[in-house]
C-alpha cells in the first residue's frame, strides 16, 4: 500500500476486504425468498474466515423495496444474520457498494474494527423494465414509462454518433465477458462465442443487440470489512481499500453528455486511481457500451484486465452487482493475480451515480 498516496486522500485508516461471498446468480430463484437466499451467503462470508456474527461490530445493507414489491425489504432480511442481542445496523436504499461505503466511513473513525455488508435483489417476481421506469423523475419522465434498455440505447447511439465506438466493439466486450465468465462458477451467462457470431443477434432496441444487455438476475452478496489487528488476524495477506469515493450527476438525461461519465472521473480522481498502475478493474457496466465510457473516465489503458469475472453482462443482480465488483476485484488480489485493482459500481439511468474503490495487496 502506498502510504504517501493515503496522506493526500481521505483514507485515514486502512480497512481490508476480509471476506467475500455471493449466491449463485440465476434468472429465477423460485425456491427461496430473499432471507433464504441471503442466509447461506452470510454463513459463507463468516465461515471463510472462521468468524461469527459476534465478531461483527456494525452491519449495513443495500436493497430496494421496489423489487420485493412491498415496504421494508431490509427488515426481514436482517433475519439472515440474526441480530440478537441487538446490533448497530443501518441500511441504504442503494446498491450494496454504497452500504460498504457507509461501513467503511464508520471504520475510519477507529472506534470499531469490523463490519458486515450485504445486499440482495430478486428481480424475477416483477417486470424489471417497468419497475426501473419508476426510478425516473416522477413528474416528467416516469409517466412516460421509458424503460432502462431504451435509455441505455440512447446512450449507446450517442457513443456511436460521437465516433467513440462501433457496434462491433459492443459485441467484442460481450464476447470477452461471456468467455471470462466460464471461469466464474457464480455467473449466469457464460459461453465461448465470437464477436462475429454475436453480431448476428437481433436488436432489442437499436443499436443494442441482445448480447449488449445485462441478464435479469436474482442474487445476493456479502463482504466482511476489517481494520486494525482484526484485518491481520483474519488474513495473512489483507486486501486493503486505499481509495474510496462516489459522485452523482444530474438526473436529467438531456442535460448530460451521455458519452462521458464525469461522476466516475471525479470519484476515480478522489479515490486515487491514477496514483499507481492498475492490474485489474471490475467495472459495473450493465450495458456493453458503458464499459467503454467507464474505461475512459477512469483513464484505464489497454493493459488493464477488465472484468475477469465476466462483469454485469454475465450476472447483474440488482442492488448487489456493484458490491460484487468490489468482492471480485479483492478476490483477484487475494489470489495473487493482481497487485492493485479498481472496483466500480453504478446506479440510476445511463450511469447517473458512480462509486470507485481502489484496492491493493501487500503490507
Amino acid at each position, binding site marked *: 500500500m502506498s502510504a504517501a498516496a493515503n496522506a493526500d486522500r*481521505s483514507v485515514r485508516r486502512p480497512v481490508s476486504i476480509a471476506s467475500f461471498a455471493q449466491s449463485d446468480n440465476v434468472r429465477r430463484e423460485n425456491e427461496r*425468498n430473499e432471507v433464504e437466499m441471503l442466509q447461506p451467503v452470510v454463513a459463507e462470508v463468516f465461515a471463510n474466515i472462521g468468524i461469527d456474527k459476534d465478531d461483527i461490530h456494525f452491519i449495513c445493507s443495500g436493497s*430496494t*423495496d*421496489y423489487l*420485493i*414489491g*412491498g*415496504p*421494508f425489504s*431490509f*427488515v*426481514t432480511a*436482517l*433475519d439472515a444474520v*440474526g*441480530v*440478537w*442481542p*441487538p*446490533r*448497530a*445496523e*443501518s*441500511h*441504504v*436504499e*442503494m446498491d450494496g457498494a*454504497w452500504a460498504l*461505503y*457507509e461501513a467503511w*466511513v*464508520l471504520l*475510519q*473513525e*477507529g*472506534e470499531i474494527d469490523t463490519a458486515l455488508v450485504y445486499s440482495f435483489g430478486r428481480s424475477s417476481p416483477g417486470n424489471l423494465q417497468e*419497475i*426501473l421506469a*419508476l*426510478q*425516473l*423523475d*416522477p413528474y416528467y419522465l416516469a409517466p412516460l414509462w421509458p424503460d432502462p434498455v431504451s435509455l441505455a440505447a440512447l446512450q449507446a447511439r450517442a457513443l456511436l454518433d460521437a465516433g467513440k465506438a462501433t457496434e462491433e466493439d459492443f459485441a467484442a466486450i460481450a464476447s470477452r465477458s461471456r468467455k471470462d465468465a466460464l471461469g466464474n462458477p457464480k455467473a449466469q451467462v457464460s459461453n465461448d462465442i465470437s464477436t462475429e457470431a454475436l453480431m448476428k443477434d437481433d436488436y432489442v432496441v437499436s443499436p443494442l443487440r441482445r448480447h449488449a444487455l445485462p441478464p435479469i438476475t436474482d442474487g445476493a452478496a456479502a463482504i466482511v470489512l476489517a481494520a486494525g489487528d482484526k484485518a491481520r488476524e483474519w488474513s495473512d495477506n489483507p486486501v486493503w481499500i486505499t481509495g474510496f*469515493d*462516489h*459522485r*452523482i*450527476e*444530474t*438526473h*436529467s438525461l438531456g442535460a448530460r453528455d451521455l458519452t462521458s461519465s*464525469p*461522476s466516475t472521473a*471525479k470519484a476515480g480522481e478522489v479515490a486515487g486511481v491514477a496514483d499507481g498502475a492498475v492490474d485489474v478493474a471490475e467495472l459495473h457496466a450493465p450495458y456493453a457500451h458503458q464499459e467503454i465510457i467507464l474505461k475512459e473516465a477512469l483513464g484505464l489503458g489497454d493493459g488493464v484486465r477488465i472484468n475477469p469475472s465476466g462483469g454485469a453482462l454475465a450476472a447483474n443482480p440488482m442492488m448487489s452487482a456493484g458490491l460484487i465488483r468490489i468482492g471480485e476485484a479483492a478476490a483477484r488480489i487475494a489470489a495473487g493475480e493482481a497487485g492493485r485493482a479498481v472496483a466500480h459500481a453504478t*446506479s*440510476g*439511468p445511463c450511469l*447517473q*451515480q458512480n462509486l470507485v474503490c481502489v484496492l491493493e495487496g501487500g503490507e
Partner: protein
Amino acid sequence: MAERCAVIGVGQTHHKAKRDDISIAGMVREAAKMALTDADLTWSDIDAVVIGKAPDMFEGSMMPELYLAPALGAVGKPMLRVHTAGSVGGSTSIVAAHLISSGIHQRVLTVAYEKQSDSDAMWALSVPQPFAAPLLAGAGGYFAPHIRAYMRRSGAPEHIGRMVAVKDRLNAIRNPYAHLHLPDIDMKTVEESMMLWDPLRYLEACPSSDGAAAMVLAAEDSVSGSYPPAWIHGMAMRSEPTQFAGRDQVNPQAGRDCSADVYAQAGITNPRAEIDVAEVYVPFSWYEPMWLENLGFCDLGDGWKLTEAGATAFDGDIPWNTSGGVLSSNPIGASGMLRFLEVAMQVRGQAGEHQIDGVSRALGQAYGGGSQFFSMWVLGSDKP
C-alpha cells in the same frame, strides 16, 4: 479518534396535510435552503448530501434521490440515501454526522422528507406478501396491542394517553411549522374522538403530513452561522429482529441498548437530571410513558406517573416534545430528523415560542418498524 461534529444549520417546511403547491423536489429544496441560510452558507459550500425517507411506496417513486440530486445541489458530489423505516430521519442524521466525525468531509447537508399526500401510507404498509400475515391495519393497529400490554403491566390508568395527546398538541401551538394547531383540544375532546385501534382514539394518533427537514452539519474548523453550534455528544443506532419468541415489544432491548450507548458517549448517568429537553418519537400517545421507561428516565412501570405528574410538560423538569412532536407533525421519513433537528434548535436557542430556557444538553430519539429500529443523539452547547 473521531472528529468533533456540530449542527450549524436547520430548516423545515410548514408541515401540512397536502403540499399541493409544490413538487417533492421543491419541498426538499425549501427545507435545505433554509438550513443553508441558517448556517450562512450556499450550495457550493456543501461537500456531500445524505438524504433519508421511509418506504418509496409512500410516494410511488423508486429511489427518488436520483431525481432529487440536482434540487439538493448534489451534482458532482457524493450522495447517500438511507432507509431504516420510521427511525430513518434519525439514522440519516447519524450517517451524515459520521461523514464529518470520520474526517472525510467538512460540511454535509442532510435532508429527510415524506410527501404522504402523494399516496396512501396505510396502503403502502399493507401490501400483501407471499407467506406473510397481512398487516391491514397500518401502524396504529400494529402498536395498539403493545400499548394494551404496557397498560396491563404498569397498571397505568386510561387517561394517561389522553394527557399526552393534549400536552403535545398544546405545545404545537408554540411551533409555527407544526401541522396540527388545535387550540381547543382538551381531555374531553380526545376522549370523545373516534376509537381507531383500541385503546387509541383519533386524537391520540399522529397525522399524515407532507414535509421536509434539513440540517447542515460541520466539522469544528468549519462552524458558521449566527446561532451557536449544537455539538454532538453521542449518537447510536440499534436494531433487533422483528419477531422471535420472547421479544419484548413494549420495552425493546434495542432501545435500551441504544440509549445506554449514547449516554455512555455523552457521560450521562442520570438522564432525568442531566438532559434538559427531549424530542422523542411518540406517534401514538402512549409511547411517551413507554419510552420514558425505555430511555431510562424512570424505573420500569413508572413512566405514566411522570406524565401524570406533569414532569414532561412544557413547564415540567423534563419537557418532552416541546415542538408538538410526531403527534402534531408526521411527514414519516422526516419525523425522526425533526426530533434530531428540534433538539438542535433547543441547544442553539433558536426555538422561539417553544424554547426552553438554558438548554445545555438535549436528547433526540427516533424509532421505526415494529419498534425494532432505534436511532438517537445527544446534543450539547459545550464542545464534547
